[in-house]
């Protein structure tokens, strides 16, 4: 099991939710800080586990349904575990007219994602289509784990990026 999965598991097994508590306290247990709380929780677990949502609701003194409502409203939050590498393919207008559909097709094919699935079964890669990343001048664009931005993608350039990513992944690097 890889290091990240292990971290998630450990956090989950820790019934005292000490890390979650820390986050909630940092944000002064205030309902108005629910979004930053969920953002940090997601950073910790790489998704929002259902029991954590319930725990956050209880800690903030609000109905779990309201927390669930916020968690499902915003595109950033995921109730499903995401891969170690999250590849975001921009589908803003500029990228769209410069071939982002093809980029996404190629990325998914390269990584071997079957239709209707966005995360590989080994939780290594997630491929997402996102609204504008704001680098329209360099369309089509994609990012890996929000750190690395790749612009003016061509099938050839994409091949290099993905080959490199697979190597890094096999070597156990995160980014």
């Amino acid at each position, binding site marked *: 099991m890889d290091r990240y999965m292990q971290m998630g598991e450990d956090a989950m097994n820790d019934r005292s939710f000490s890390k979650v508590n820390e986050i909630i306290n940092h944000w002064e247990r*205030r*309902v*108005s*800080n*629910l*979004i*930053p709380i*969920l*953002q940090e929780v997601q950073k910790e677990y790489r998704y929002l586990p259902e029991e954590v949502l319930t725990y956050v609701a209880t800690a903030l003194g609000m109905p779990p349904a309201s927390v669930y*409502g*916020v968690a499902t*409203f*915003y*595109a*950033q*939050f995921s109730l499903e575990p995401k891969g170690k590498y999250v590849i975001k393919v921009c*589908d*803003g*207008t*500029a990228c*769209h*007219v*410069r*071939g982002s*559909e*093809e980029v996404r*097709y*190629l990325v998914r*094919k390269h990584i071997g994602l079957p239709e209707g699935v966005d995360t590989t079964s080994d939780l290594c890669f997630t491929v997402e289509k*996102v*609204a*504008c*990343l*704001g*680098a*329209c*001048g*360099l*369309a089509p*664009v994609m990012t890996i784990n*929000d750190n690395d*931005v*790749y*612009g*003016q993608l061509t*099938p050839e350039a994409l091949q290099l990026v993905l080959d490199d990513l697979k190597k890094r992944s096999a070597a156990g690097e995160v980014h």
Partner: protein
Amino acid sequence: MPNTTHTNIRLHQMPAFRARCQEAFALGPDQVMILVGVGTCGLAAGGGQVLRAIQEELRLQAGAIRERGLDLEIRPTGCAGMCEAEVLVEVQRPGGHRVLYGKVKPDLARRIVAEDAVGGHPIVEWTVHRQDPGQTGNRAPAKQLHVVMENCGLIDPERIDHYIARGGYAGLERVLSGMTPLDVVKEVKQSGLRGRGGAGFPTGLKWEFAHKAAGDKKYVICNADEGDPGAFMDRSLLEGDPHAVLEGMIIGGYAIGADEGYIYCRAEYPLAIKRLRVAMEDAEKLGLLGENILGTGFSFRLHIKEGAGAFVCGEETALMASIMGERGMPRPRPPFPAQRGLWDKPTNINNVETWANVPRILARGFAWFAGIGTEKSKGTKVFALTGRVRNTGLAEVPMGLTLREIVYDIGGGIQHDRRFKAVQIGGPSGGCLPESLLDTPIDYDSLLRAGAMMGSGGMVVVDENTCMVELARYFMTFVQSESCGKCVPCREGTKQMLAILERIVAGKGEPEDIDLLEELGGAVKDGSLCGLGKSAPNPVLTTLRYFRDEFLCHVVDRRCPAGVCRALLSYSIDAAQCRGCTLCIKACPAGAITGERGKPHIIDAVRCIKCKACLEKCRFAAIRT
């Protein structure tokens, strides 16, 4: 560095402090400055590697630099707007001598250091722009006028002393030197500034409402939730000149009587958020933000709220709900935020570009600002020019320039000499305007008359290879998935409109569908609660207005004239035209094309994903659709 030695400056010390900043910012006699663009665009184009290459080369050249008595410095800057030419590297020498290089890769970066910065010989073939000593004038390229972008690409956005050296915080200084809050409101009103976020509401009037609203607690908000796909001017401003936005907000807070403000920035802009945080910290250290600003007794605190990915949060009431930790759903207005906003307190919301204009207006006076632009639209507007034009990037132009001037004179026309088809302006709330409207002057009112809107300033140019029906479907997919679901016309209407468009794109549309689309579009426009729904049908309605023939082609002739809608196409190779160059075989991502070099190739219709890659690569027009 002046900013580390000073804390808590007093108002009367500002002129002397600015003079010191200017002295430090100006180049000394033996100084050579190497500027590298490391905004998000610059980084995407490899700015990080270029920066490292320059640093390495400087170390290698250390001996030569000492010998010549040079003082070389690297300055990371934000986006200068020329995205197509990223990575941009500029070499500056005293006396206004500057050489700008484009499309710089690490190898070229090393040469720039060795040959130009150290050796003194510019590399002519890679020069994008050159300014010799004695030559003055606006740094902006032809037809542009840089006001809010005047510092972008020139200063280090993480250095408050750079901003101050360039006249930053002079507006705030003037405001706190005896202007009453009402004076400030009046000044902004007289400047004629209108909201740059889309609708173009007069900013001064908005401030006046918030100023007059009763209450001891008020808020100001910066809307940095730039969600329009195809728009990135706010990101560039935040990354390239964050202090201008802060200064605008502090002035706004003073004018309406607020002591607290929020910047709501989308989480997709991590670099902008980072630079804002640095800017806030530096401004607080100097006493320009926080308690007792410049010793005048005026206090203003600022917070950053990161969005979580919801387009509707660009709508002001939804944005406030999101700041308060709720689902970002709009509510009916009135009451307007100026009466009841954040936590039911009077609140004033403006967008990034609007805020960035404020310090300039206060520093230079309303008359200067009102002298730029048209009668009813004052000042400049930054556009994000993208899509199928040669020069993509940001263009800040005086209001009133025509679309043609932007697309052809600034954008350099259409890539690969293809034919212009339309310009999509204003994102999912705007419209698609055809060639016949290219001479429309760009101001709030002319664009509304044409059925589009200024929006936040995204301008996506499409050519003959773009299908307008498919583009309309693209926008409808976007607004449909971003509809918050609160009101029926938007939630259900956009869904039905999308279903119809999908039917047409799939080759199953009927002529009646076109009338139905128009009828539904009208209903969604009239019946929706907030700006998202009210403007959601615009891309479809304008496309129907100006490109009706293309819709008819799809539903009557079952043909996609642009060769985009896959269900209506099948790709084949014209054996008479094909030279067997194998370019298409290499380009095909599905491996659907086979053939030997020198002999006509064949497309396997079953494996073909109709991605157009072969069509775009073929130099002999042999691909048939």
